[in-house]
């Protein structure tokens, strides 16, 4: 790997336990501490991108995808009023 690829130098602090765990893993692959942590950061970025894609898919699959005509509330005009009455009724049962 060319040194010129990595022009930003930084320092981080690790707990002794985390350092121990990283060392145990990186030695398996004969990687330097820096290389191991660079790969961990790249993996994290990739996972966050995947998470964003998943959430975007979920939002598209859920929002605006049910027709009121086929809804369980198709005969209910005011959903807020329905909720209010439902909770009022529950309150009476509990009183």
């Amino acid at each position: 790997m060319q040194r010129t690829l990595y022009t930003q130098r930084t320092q981080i602090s690790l707990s002794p336990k985390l350092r121990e765990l990283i060392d145990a893993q990186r030695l398996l692959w004969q990687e330097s501490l820096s290389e191991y942590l660079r790969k961990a950061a790249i993996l994290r970025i990739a996972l966050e991108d995947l998470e964003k894609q998943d959430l975007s898919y979920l939002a598209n699959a859920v929002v605006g995808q049910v027709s009121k005509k086929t809804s369980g509330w198709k005969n209910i005009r005011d959903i807020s009023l329905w909720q209010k009455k439902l909770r009022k009724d529950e309150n009476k049962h509990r009183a």
Partner: protein
Amino acid sequence: MKINIAPEFLLDTNVVLEAFWGKKPIASKVKAWIENGKIAVSTITIAEILSKASKEETEKLKLLTSRFGSLPIDEPTAEIAGGYRKQFLRKKKKAYLLDCLIAATAKLYNLKLVTANIKDYPMKDIEIVNSSSL
């Protein structure tokens, strides 16, 4: 894998349903909140929706909860809710127990409660977002 996503908004039952139906403007807000992993729902909302939901609505709810889960009514929530109920029993404006439980969930998890029924939540120590005026 879930990474660094913390909910910010507790959606009341009416808001979840209006989002399913694509009612503007709340639906587009909820969509953006889902994309940013910012929503949460109470188990009360799940029960209320399932009490009347069509098959399609049940499926959409399952999709949501499979990703975000739901916030339970546990002892700390019940303690806050009991306090709200007691507080407002003495006042002109009463608060229903289920509304108190929803509000307590918002309080416990430090969430903004999004609802169209803002008058049902007279609590002053939680932030209420009026879904009708977004």
